[in-house]
């Protein structure tokens, strides 16, 4: 009897070592040219984006602690995965986030105050994707958005808006989810539909090791990168704390998707340095040793070391810090000025077309509330 293979390890694409040296792994070699083609301004923008994200995390957590947000969802530790992949997208692409990709939205042109209005309890949505870089709404039921993204990609394909060979107009879809979400049925069904219809789409899984308090080992004994392979699409595991790997592999995958070569799957191995949300206490389920280990792999520290090695000036880093500080302060100020929603928004847009119950119940509530505060007099 032949022993069955139980070794499920996969190679990892890494360009930057944790120490900040550009030393591509064997698997990364084919992607190196994509990084070499980047100019200094773009490389500096990656850094600026990552620092902005981390500074926004501080502002968001503070606002929550001060009672100004119901919840903050931190990205600390995942900046490279998010920035690299988002910077690989083109304006015509559509991005479907889960709920932790704040910097992805900002890169696509979204005002983060819109995200804060959602987390503040002022709206169930927050923005119109069509007006905000095709950055779709956060989806809180895990993996639901993987199917929406796949359907959208089917529509792009049916419209002949991909695969024409024109990189300026061919579009693709980039969908984000996490290691916990890979266990959801919808995530598997999305891979089935994407593979079946050969959608122009990239599945980008941020494996941050923890689904609230449950480790990724409970979701899967094998690398998540193998999930895509099993469904019939190219799958790559990357060092998710390496912004260059994230950029290069996503860029290559999106180009293939736009060119009509079908969907692909990326597992970005990263780490959630903070809590799942501000409602969580990670010291109850994971060790400080683990956190310390991942601190040595920090995405910003390593990228900064590399930029410094290439000759970036101290003034550049100081400027970025100051800009991020100003950005976060401005977001905070405007978040505090957000108006409270009015009672008619409970009923508005539940239906697109007129609905008798909405009109009736709003009229009743308005009358009732006015009778309490005397404004009906």
């Amino acid at each position, binding site marked *: 009897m032949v022993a069955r293979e139980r070794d499920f390890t996969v190679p990892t694409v890494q360009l930057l070592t944790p120490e900040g040296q550009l030393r591509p792994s064997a698997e990364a070699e084919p992607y190196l040219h994509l990084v070499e083609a980047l100019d200094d301004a773009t490389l500096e923008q990656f850094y600026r984006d990552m620092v902005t994200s981390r500074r926004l995390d501080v502002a968001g957590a503070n606002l929550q602690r001060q009672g100004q947000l119901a919840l903050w969802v931190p990205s600390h530790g995942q900046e490279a995965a998010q920035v690299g992949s988002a910077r690989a997208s083109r304006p015509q692409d559509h991005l479907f986030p889960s709920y932790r990709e704040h910097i992805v939205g900002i890169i696509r042109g979204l005002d983060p105050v819109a995200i804060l209005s959602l987390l503040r309890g002022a*709206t169930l*949505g927050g923005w119109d*994707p069509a007006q905000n870089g095709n950055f779709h709404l956060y989806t809180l039921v895990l993996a639901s958005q993987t*199917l*929406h993204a796949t359907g*959208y*990609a089917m529509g792009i394909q*049916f419209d002949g808006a991909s695969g024409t060979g024109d990189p300026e107009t061919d579009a693709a879809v980039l969908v984000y989810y996490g290691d916990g979400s890979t266990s959801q049925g919808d995530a598997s069904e999305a891979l089935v539909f994407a593979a079946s219809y050969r959608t122009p789409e990239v599945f980008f899984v941020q494996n941050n090791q923890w689904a609230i308090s449950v480790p990724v080992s409970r979701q899967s004994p094998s690398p998540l990168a193998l999930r895509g392979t099993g469904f019939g699409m190219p799958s790559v595991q990357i060092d998710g704390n390496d912004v260059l790997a994230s950029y290069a592999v996503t860029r290559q995958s999106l180009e293939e998707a736009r060119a009509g070569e079908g969907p692909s799957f990326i597992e970005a191995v990263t780490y959630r340095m903070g809590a799942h949300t501000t409602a969580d206490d990670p010291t109850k389920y994971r060790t400080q040793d683990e956190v310390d280990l991942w601190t040595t792999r920090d995405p910003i520290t390593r990228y900064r070391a590399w930029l410094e090695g290439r000759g970036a000036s101290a003034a550049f880093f100081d400027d970025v810090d100051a800009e991020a500080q100003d950005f976060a302060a401005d977001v905070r100020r405007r978040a505090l000025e957000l108006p409270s929603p009015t009672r008619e928004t409970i009923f508005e847009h*539940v239906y697109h077309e007129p609905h008798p119950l909405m009109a009736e119940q709003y009229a009743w509530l308005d009358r009732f509330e006015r009778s309490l505060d005397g404004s009906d007099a």
Partner: protein
Amino acid sequence: MSLAGDAIRRLDEPGTAEAQHQEVSVTNHSTAEASARPAQQDAEPAVRGVQTLSMAKAITAGLREALRADEKVLLMGEDIGPLGGVFRVTEGLQAEFGDRRVLDTPLAESGIVGTAIGLAMRGYRPVIEIQFDGFIFPAFDQITTQLSRINLRHGGAMPMPIVIRVPYGGHIGSIEHHQESPEAYFAHTPGLRVVSPSNPHDAYWMIQEAIASNDPVLYFEPKSRYWPKGPVDLDHAGIPLHESRIVRQGTDVTVVGHGAMVATLLQAADIAAGEGTSLEVVDLRSLSPIDYGPLLESVHRTGRLVVAQEAYGNVSVGSEIAATVAERAFYSLEAPVLRVSGFDTPFPPAALETEYLPSPDRVLEAVDRALAF
């Protein structure tokens, strides 16, 4: 004991299927003629007349009209392509419109609804076929947490013109999960619209109106009524999608139902007439929103109401109607609103379905109780 296959095969019986086919062909023919003529603003619209169709074929014809009218309309479902669906409702449509308009999807209901949402975000108008009532639940999450709320989350900027067709209800002698009536789950969910035709004419028009709606519509097709034929006026729709209708006038007791139950109520009314009791029959047509106008008007006259449905009675559409009528017609009521429904058990093995499902006699028993007050 007959299973689903027997019921389905009825469509293929010599004579029946052929006759239906010819009737639909007539529709094709006249439509083709109409479109062949140059469009002129002052031209009289082509009169297509009244045809006799089964509900299944009326829905086919309605789907064909919708596919022709708007290239963004897509059909999605399991086995709806070359096979034409297990009830043959989409028969011939993939051959006519191609596999980019009529999609045989992977076998995954949540996947079908979830990808339809993405397609609707892209501007498509997907029409989904769920194969059987009991198989809608894998998609329940996408329907209730996503589809129903996308327009709201986007502040009206992203309407969801999706229709979910659901063959539902008993009387076909089939196995578990093939005879259920899950409409209350969806009528309970804000953001969804829920309708159910009771006859071929309504089925033909209501499917087109549902597809034209910019809200998601659950379109429940009473599968025991797929085969009986009735007149379909191809030129005149009649009342709007969400209005109910008095289908038989009477003076003593109002009885209301939807889908297949309307035929049962009409049978009950015939029997009652023979016994000297006059029933007024209301066809609800829309379960969300519910049009209470004709119902209340009727109850104001009769003072008595019996609500009938195949679905479980507990926390059901019938419960809602009973509560609302009690609130709004309290001083007109001579008796409490009574409910006739499926029992609060899973749909039983088919050998027992005639005892489980409300029959004309069960309706008349409730009518007698209402009259006894």
